[in-house]
């Protein structure tokens, strides 16, 4: 019996909790991608670098706050800087829309033209981020590192296996729940949110109903920039900030949005967790877990790790390809790309 409990604790510590926080980060990223897709009808390849840019702004403000001697007690100072980072990201997104995407909207360009334009924007954001903060690794998490330490857990329960919950993981999940609840409330209950859904549903009829398309587009960028920055800062607090890693995050984020059904906010959330759990479970070495739950003579010799962590992106790729082949609309019947 204790073995099974130990096994569950082990699983929680190395799979459940990390995947939950990684999934939350992906879900927030995918939510932004899906909103842009629903309203502006293109896959925004610059979303990963928008995350990097917003996070960079937040980190710099965090440093500024440190320099002024401000801290947030047990919580990371970056949370205080986050609102300002979000504002900067919103401004950048709105300027980009005005300078780049609005031109193509007026031309009524094909979606693929928008996608290519967003690739250009991606490189620009990419460069801006690197000019300001460089290409290296930045760790900006401060405050209390753990909510629950391994030793504390062991003393508390008397189990062999330990369980640790990092502050960043708890913050990630709490913030994700709050942000997702807000976005859904906004989309379902407010006049502006409904106008956004109407515009996404049937552009011509929305125009006929007097919905101002420019306003809908602006609100969408504002939401997407905020979501990107929040996702980026949470990811950075949880792991670390490196511009290239954020660029790579684009793949699991798109996989999440597409698995869930692109254009469907609920799908983005579900997709984020599906991708995160698949990635973590496939790259986890199951030896310890299996040893605990099977009789001693059946314990595996190898690590029972399906894929090395270096190959974790392969998981997103496989999910992406399988979904596009088998069910292109995703779980929640989004649009077909």
């Amino acid at each position: 019996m204790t073995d099974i409990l130990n096994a569950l604790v082990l699983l929680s510590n190395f799979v459940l909790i990390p995947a939950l926080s990684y999934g939350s980060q992906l879900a927030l990223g995918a939510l932004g991608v899906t909103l842009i897709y629903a309203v502006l009808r293109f896959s925004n390849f610059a979303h990963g670098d928008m995350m990097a840019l917003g996070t960079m702004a937040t980190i710099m403000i965090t440093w500024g706050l440190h320099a002024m001697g401000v801290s947030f007690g047990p919580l990371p100072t970056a949370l205080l800087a986050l609102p300002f980072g979000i504002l900067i990201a919103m401004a950048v997104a709105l300027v980009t829309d005005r300078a780049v995407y609005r031109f193509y909207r007026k031309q009524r360009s094909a979606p693929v033209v928008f996608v290519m334009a967003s690739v250009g924007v991606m490189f620009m954001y990419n460069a801006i981020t690197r000019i300001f903060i460089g290409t290296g690794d930045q760790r900006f998490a401060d405050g209390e590192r753990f909510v629950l330490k391994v030793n504390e857990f062991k003393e508390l329960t008397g189990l062999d296996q330990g369980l640790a919950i990092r502050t960043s993981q708890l913050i990630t999940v709490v913030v994700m729940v709050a942000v997702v609840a807000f976005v859904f409330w906004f989309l379902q209950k407010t006049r502006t949110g409904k106008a956004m859904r109407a515009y996404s549903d049937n552009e011509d009829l929305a125009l006929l109903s007097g919905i101002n398309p420019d306003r809908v587009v602006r609100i969408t960028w504002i939401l997407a920039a905020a979501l990107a920055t929040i996702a980026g800062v949470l990811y950075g607090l949880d792991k670390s900030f490196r511009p290239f890693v954020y660029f790579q995050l684009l793949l699991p984020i798109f996989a999440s949005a597409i698995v869930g059904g692109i254009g469907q906010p609920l799908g983005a959330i579900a997709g984020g967790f599906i991708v995160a759990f698949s990635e973590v479970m496939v790259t986890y070495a199951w030896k310890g877990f299996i040893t605990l739950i099977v009789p001693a003579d059946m314990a595996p010799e190898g690590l029972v790790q399906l894929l090395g962590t270096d190959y974790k992106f392969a998981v997103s790729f496989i999910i992406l390809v399988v979904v596009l082949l088998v069910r292109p609309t995703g779980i929640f019947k989004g649009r077909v790309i």
Partner: protein
Amino acid sequence: MSFLAGTNMTGGYGAADILHDCTIAVDKGEIAVIVGPNGAGKSTAMKAVFGMLKLRQGSVTLDGRDITNLTPQDRVQSGMGFVPQTNNVFVNMSVEENLEMGAYIRDDDFSGTMDRVFDLFPILKEKRSQPAGQLSGGQRQQVAVGRALMTQPKVLMLDEPTAGVSPIVMDELFDNILEIAALGIAILMVEQNARQALNIADKGYVLVQGANRYTDTGEALMANPEVRKTFLGG
């Protein structure tokens, strides 16, 4: 001068004209129906009146005011409602939300208007929280008409409201349209089901190749042997 009038309209989508000197008019509380063979420019004439087509010649007036240069959105603001033939509801939104979006330009309390739409289409009240995309063809048309009524228009324009619905549902929809006209709203519609539409019409316009061929009361057109033979199948 009629309440809504498109006078001597000439124009098309590209270089070639589709409408040639076409005139359509309707008064408050009246039903005007545009009929004619396929490709006669019926929908085009309607779109021209609503400002979705650039006119080279002619004018459109609403209540004596020249609205020829207004955008469709501005025409909605000035009291015109338009129900497109296809894609005329927000399929992923509930019936109630569809009606709310219809009232988007209104800043006042529109719950009274919504109640009146529900009185007109009781089934919609029952299905108010269902996505409009899950409704039957006839119910969807009701949502579409209801959405357009939410701005409290003085003119309601319907592009083939009965396309693709069963004969029973078609009769119901025509009954609804009569009720709406009785509220004092001017109704202009394009119809494929010419015979049934002319039956309820105060005024009928038979278009051929973008020009007026016959214009008369619905009754007179039904009685006209030439119209019967050529356009109503005998």
